[in-house]
């Protein structure tokens, strides 16, 4: 049986996404701009607000604003386009003989000014209080937080109305200060929580240790990182303050001598403009206000997206994977097409070779493999190009064996696990490949078929059990969920089964009624193991099952996994970067580097005679008590995953690199009993007599 990797002979652009995906990558790039400030919603919103502001500021240049006061115009004239309209009053006049256009020109900037002023005062106070609370902590924090939390729930307008009915507000500045009374709690809460988060970031800690003053840290290290949040809070605050001011004005409680949009509405409603059909009186101020609010609203959500890239990413990629069945169909069809196009690009004899190898693998994959992964390609489509997280990964797990998948962080281990489970998260996607369990290719399945395969045949012991359990439901419910999704079981039987499963992993009965936060890390991980064996699956994927645990608990969990495997005869893929653990647990080991498999071998052979230079480094790095040797760190960095070099994937860090490695990529070749390695050092014809042990 061959575990092969497609040789990429002439270094055909590995880094470029395949043609069909280039299109989707481009589409994605259009949605998410590289410069976050160029957010389309934010730009549109600012444009709207600016043009309204310009209308107010430039208006007096073109129009005689005194007409807003004189009251000399004829009464109740409609706009110029309506019947009876006068050209000297293009937007008509109201019942007091005042020109509407002049009123609107004067009112617009004064409404905006109140909003800006109140929000800026609120923001200044909020930043001061919030940073004090977040930075000093302790009692300061407690007091400031309690007061701002209370203040935020007070119905502001009620208090404002009462205040305004006693305090005669002569101008907009006085009003802005009163409105600011309610504009500070929001920014305070925001700055406090941001400060708390940022304070723990390592670069802030570094600045602190290097002796920077608190003020310096606040303004140099923290403030720039809060900027989008603060801006979103400011635009929200401005529209809130305009809303408050307009509310007071509509009620007739604002300054009455200065025209404002709310005041026009107030005068219109008190003069029964609605009933009298004087639409041009009450509607224009409402339209201007709506435009202002829409502008600020767009700015706020745009800034929100800038501050919160998750939302942006979701918006850009969310639709793509939405209809699961459709997605399946699409990938299936594309896969066929690509395979054909890939082979057709190759020269005649190579194509024949690939096709022969294809046929060979297909038959061999079926011999006694519980799980067979064939030619798996997974790409993550980022704005700057596709990251190749798995490149032509082919491996199989035999019945009853544990296959270890090792490699450094970011090498694509977890991506392979997610791809096997068919849950690669956007923007990632399986571009090509086959995943077979019992002769069924999971890649082509519909969402419904996949649900049946999940857990019954293919289960997961997740990475970091800390967050893998739903925090708000009991263990009973979460385990029952898994069972009931696939079987009809009565209540009593269900309870008994869950208890048995918990016993199997060495947990006491009382765990059944507990919630995740009441369990220790090791207990949670064992709950996850118990859950994974609930339906006696064919294959369990264990993704770093012990990595977040301390050494003693690691041992217990590893032991539990082994016992489970022995008893049930289940096949397992064990993903881990812990070479020591792998040595004890697994039957065969697959070493992954930068999305490519570099060595696949039985565990004894791999540890005794590691062939690939990378595997050798990994095994050397296992610390030993008997001999203290200097840690042999792997030098150099991984290449840019978007653009892997032609030739060997490990060339930049390899000690034995030579010209051939730079030119073409080696494939996995069986060089010993069941021992596969992808390295030119072992290509039989070229490098048979190099003794690696002395290297």
């Amino acid at each position, binding site marked *: 049986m061959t575990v092969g990797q497609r040789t990429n002979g002439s270094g055909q652009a590995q880094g470029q996404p395949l043609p069909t995906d280039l299109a989707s990558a481009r589409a994605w790039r259009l949605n998410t701009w590289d410069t976050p400030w160029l957010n389309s919603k934010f730009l549109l919103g600012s444009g709207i607000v600016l043009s309204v502001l310009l209308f107010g500021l430039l208006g007096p240049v073109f129009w005689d604003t005194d007409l807003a006061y004189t009251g000399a115009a004829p009464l109740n004239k409609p706009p110029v386009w309506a019947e009876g309209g006068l050209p000297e009053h293009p937007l008509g006049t109201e019942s007091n003989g005042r020109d509407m256009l002049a009123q609107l020109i004067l009112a617009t900037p004064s409404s905006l000014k109140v909003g800006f002023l109140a929000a800026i005062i609120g923001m200044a106070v909020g930043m001061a209080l919030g940073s004090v609370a977040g930075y000093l902590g302790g009692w300061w924090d407690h007091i400031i937080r*309690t007061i701002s939390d209370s203040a935020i729930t007070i119905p502001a307008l009620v208090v404002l109305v009462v205040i305004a009915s006693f305090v005669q507000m002569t101008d907009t500045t006085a009003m802005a200060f009163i409105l600011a009374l309610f504009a500070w709690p929001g920014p305070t809460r925001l700055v406090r929580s941001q400060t708390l988060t940022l304070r723990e970031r390592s670069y802030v800690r570094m600045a602190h240790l290097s002796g920077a003053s608190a003020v310096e840290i606040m303004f140099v290290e923290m403030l720039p990182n809060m900027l989008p949040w603060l801006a979103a809070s400011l635009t929200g605050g401005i529209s809130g303050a305009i809303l408050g001011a307009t509310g007071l004005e509509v009620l007739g409680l604002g300054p009455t001598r200065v025209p404002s949009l709310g005041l026009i509405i107030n005068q219109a409603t008190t003069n029964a403009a609605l009933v009298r059909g004087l639409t041009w009186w009450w509607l224009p101020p*409402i339209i201007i206000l709506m435009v202002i609010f829409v502008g600020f609203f767009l700015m706020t959500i745009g800034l929100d997206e800038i501050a919160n890239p998750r939302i942006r990413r979701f918006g850009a990629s969310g639709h793509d994977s939405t209809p699961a069945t459709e997605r399946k169909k699409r990938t299936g069809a594309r896969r066929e097409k690509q395979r054909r196009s890939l082979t057709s690009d190759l020269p005649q004899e190579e194509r024949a070779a690939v096709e022969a190898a294809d046929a060979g693998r297909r038959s061999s994959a079926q011999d006694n493999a519980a799980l067979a992964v064939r030619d798996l390609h997974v790409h993550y489509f980022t704005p700057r190009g596709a990251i190749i997280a798995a490149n032509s990964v082919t491996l199989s797990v035999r019945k009853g064996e544990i296959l270890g998948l090792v490699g450094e962080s970011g090498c694509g281990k977890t991506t392979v696990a997610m791809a096997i489970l068919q849950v690669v998260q956007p923007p990632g996607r399986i571009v090509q490949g086959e995943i077979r369990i019992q002769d069924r290719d999971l890649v082509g399945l519909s969402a419904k078929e996949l649900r049946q395969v999940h857990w019954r045949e293919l289960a997961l012991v997740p990475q970091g059990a800390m967050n893998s359990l739903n925090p708000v439901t009991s263990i009973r419910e979460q385990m029952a969920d898994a069972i009931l999704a696939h079987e009809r079981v009565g209540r009593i039987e269900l309870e008994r089964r869950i208890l048995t499963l918990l016993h199997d992993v060495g947990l006491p009965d009382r765990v059944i009624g507990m919630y995740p*936060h009441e369990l220790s890390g090791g207990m949670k991980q064992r709950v996850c193991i118990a859950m994974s064996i609930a339906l006696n699956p064919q294959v369990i994927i264990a993704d770093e099952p012990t990595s977040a645990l301390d050494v003693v608990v690691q041992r217990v969990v590893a032991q539990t996994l082994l016992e489970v495997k022995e008893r049930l005869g289940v096949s397992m893929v064990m993903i881990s970067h812990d070479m020591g653990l792998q040595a004890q647990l697994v039957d065969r080991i697959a070493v992954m580097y930068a999305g490519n498999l570099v060595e696949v071998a039985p565990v004894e052979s791999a540890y005794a005679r590691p062939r690939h230079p990378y595997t050798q480094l990994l095994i050397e790095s296992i610390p030993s008590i008997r001999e203290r040797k200097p840690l042999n760190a792997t030098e150099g960095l991984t290449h840019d995953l978007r653009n892997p070099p032609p030739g060997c994937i490990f060339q930049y860090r390899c000690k034995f690199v030579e010209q051939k490695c730079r030119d073409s990529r080696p494939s996995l070749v069986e060089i010993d009993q069941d021992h596969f390695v992808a390295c030119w050092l072992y290509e039989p014809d070229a490098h048979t007599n190099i003794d690696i042990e002395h290297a």
Partner: protein
Amino acid sequence: MRGLTKEYVLQRFLMYLLTIWLGSTLIFIIPRLAPGDPITVMITRVSLDSGYVENADQIIAAWKARFGLDDSLWVQYARYWGNVFRLDFGFSLAHFPTKAWTMVRPALPWSLGLLSLATALSFLVGVTVGALMGWRRTPRWLQLILPSSLTFTAIPYFMFGIVLIYVVAFKLDWLPATGAYSRSVNPGWNWPFIQNVASHAILPVVSIVLTSMGGWALGMRGLMISVNNEDYFLLAQVKGLSPTRIFFRYGVRNAILPALTALALGLGGLISGSILVEFIFAYPGTGYTLYQSIIAQDYTVTQAIANLIIIVTATSVFLLDLLYPLIDPRITYKRNAP
């Protein structure tokens, strides 16, 4: 009663008292910080409106004595607190023999009914829309339609109310424009009256719901997106659960908790907005009564209503706070608004 510890309840109760204290004190202190006292301001206003009031000084002095404004600020403050606690604000200024409380009480059920219906609807609809927007499996056509429902979010309640009155009530004549019920029906538990009340409530409720649900929706969308990235959400998928179960038990169930906190924090704003809605629709609730009392310069009634609204808001927030640990097994002391 898991999670509802004595410590938590006590802490929330103190917050409750603090909120009422802050609001009421603002109402008390700011008019007094301003130049002139409420009575003088009011009498001056009256004299400005009606040209001249004879012996205004004596009137002011007499009223000040009657309402205890001659006492020191601290004595006034203490007395004011006594009033807030007993919900007794003395007599109405504008309708003298009537107690302020008597003027306020009839407005209360209208406001409570309108507001609780509008709040519940806007929160439910908003949260549902937001949850669907933040879920990867929402059908594509829904994903395209839902964001348009947020269009109204940017528009303040009362403006939408005015437009609704003009279009639906005046132009189309489908629903009544103002008031809580028509004069032609007999108040009581009879069908025509209930029908009439319902038809009057539609426009105010719609204008509150449509303009406020977007806020909840946006918040919920963000929360759902976060939950989407959680490990337990992934595990639920791999467990082979049905999409609806994942959506409700793993998605909404987790995202709703901070959304409820946001509801508690946003209640004040919602109630503020409803004052204007009541004003626009001349709906005889507390907001409208508050407005009328201000127009009538009925100082005691104004104070009574303002305090009442503050207390009711704080109480609802307190009740929400008590509900919170019951649905979140982790005891949470902080309010983490999104």
